[in-house]
């Protein structure tokens, strides 16, 4: 699984973000910040992705979608909450249609705060996510070995 941690592929889903964080996630992938040079590629297919970048908070309508994308991703996988909306609900936390941060639906591994989250922060979070990914794949291997014994 070492290849995954060297060049993780990311998938992005916009929960109910205001777009501010989405365009920053895209900006991180584009020439200004260019995370592609580290082998990080944006994919539209959950089955190809190692890291799930979620922006925006969760509501009744998109809860199932986020859950579905998460479930379709193959282990080991890491979830990064991008922006304060995704972390806690942010300034919209008391809106009637906001359930809260992404961690109210799926487990989140790394939180990247900011409103909007700046691309440096996203890169930082992805790098931290890669470390988590490594740990998870180690744990997975160990489990497999034990099962084989």
């Amino acid at each position: 699984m070492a290849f995954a941690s060297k060049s993780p592929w990311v998938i992005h889903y916009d929960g109910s973000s205001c777009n501010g964080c989405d365009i920053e996630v895209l900006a991180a992938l584009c020439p200004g910040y260019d995370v592609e040079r580290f082998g990080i590629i944006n994919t539209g297919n959950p089955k190809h992705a190692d890291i799930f970048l979620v922006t925006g908070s969760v509501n009744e309508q998109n809860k199932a979608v986020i859950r579905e994308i998460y479930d379709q991703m193959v282990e080991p996988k890491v979830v990064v909450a991008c922006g304060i909306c995704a972390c806690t609900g942010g300034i919209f936390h008391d809106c009637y249609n906001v359930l809260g941060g992404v961690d109210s639906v799926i487990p989140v591994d790394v939180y990247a705060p900011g409103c909007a989250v700046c691309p440096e922060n996203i890169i930082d979070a992805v790098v931290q996510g890669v470390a988590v990914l490594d740990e998870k794949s180690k744990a997975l291997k160990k489990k497999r070995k034990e099962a084989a014994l």
Partner: protein
Amino acid sequence: MGKQTIIPFGPQHPVLPEPLHLDLVVEDEKVIEAIPQIGFVHRGLEKLVETRDYQQFVYVAERICGICAFGHSMGYAETVERLMGVEVPERAQYLRVIWHELSRIHSHILWLGLAADAFGYESLFMHCWRLRERVLDIFQKTCGGRVILSVVKVGGVVRDIDVAQLKYILDVLEGLRAEYEQICRAFLKDTSVKNRTVGVGYISTEDALGLSMVGPFARASNVDYDVRSLGIGAYGQLSDFQPIVSSDGDCYARMEVRTREVVQSIEIIKEMILRMPQGPIAVDVKGAPADGAESSMVVEQPRGECYYYARGNGTKYLDRMRMRTPTSQNLAGMTVALAGCDLADVNTIILTIDPCISCTER
């Protein structure tokens, strides 16, 4: 006659960063009907006016949409200023126009990039986003933020732009323009791009008017309407303003209108900077809007006319705040353009109408 099938499009789809769901009813390769379903981004932020006072709400209004963030904070502030009869200093009006036009440039270039991605021209996408970073640099230097600027307040703006920074903006825009024109050549002259866009997704003038489409998408169908020509705020000081229109109504026309609007915005900013008056940048606003007072305002956002409405109730909290965004007007046009198109053109058509979902649903 083939059998009809339904292909779901979105909410998670690579061409559109935003969650929009479409049920595409297809027969063979032809789209018969497109049924949009929205509601993934609804937060209910209009209701927040009841718990944030009218001065605070500016920051909520700014987060209606991260792409035209500045425009929304400006639109909201101007609505409340009208409600309370506040006269904004001239310099603040000029500064607002500069930032607003800069947002338009960044939004249009961002969109051009996404459109390039939609018809499969990835390097062009990257080039557009590289250029867009320059505008974001201006934002960062003048406001401190990249997308959420937080410079508007009720009664004016929070920050001034000094002479050195104004010169810097002019320099950056001059450099941007040269490179931008090269990119435009790829969009407007390249044969493979033309093959994907000319004659695709046609919307007639009657349809555009009948479905009350707004913004560059209506102007591409020969509807000569641009809120900026009403001359609200510092727009009234412009020596000349003509909306950019095209009569073809297809994807190519929509792209052409928007590419030309970037250059127009650069010209507007230049003129504003040359004529910038001296003076204060904000006035103090005290008190509360009168009970039952109402006001409304229109702003030309990058995607078209946006309408704001506010009603006071004698307290610091507004009674009602309502807005109608350009995309809610344009979605109907999108479904018309999608009906009868090829399945492969769906991406391009959706992108050239450029729905902004988070504005629409709030």
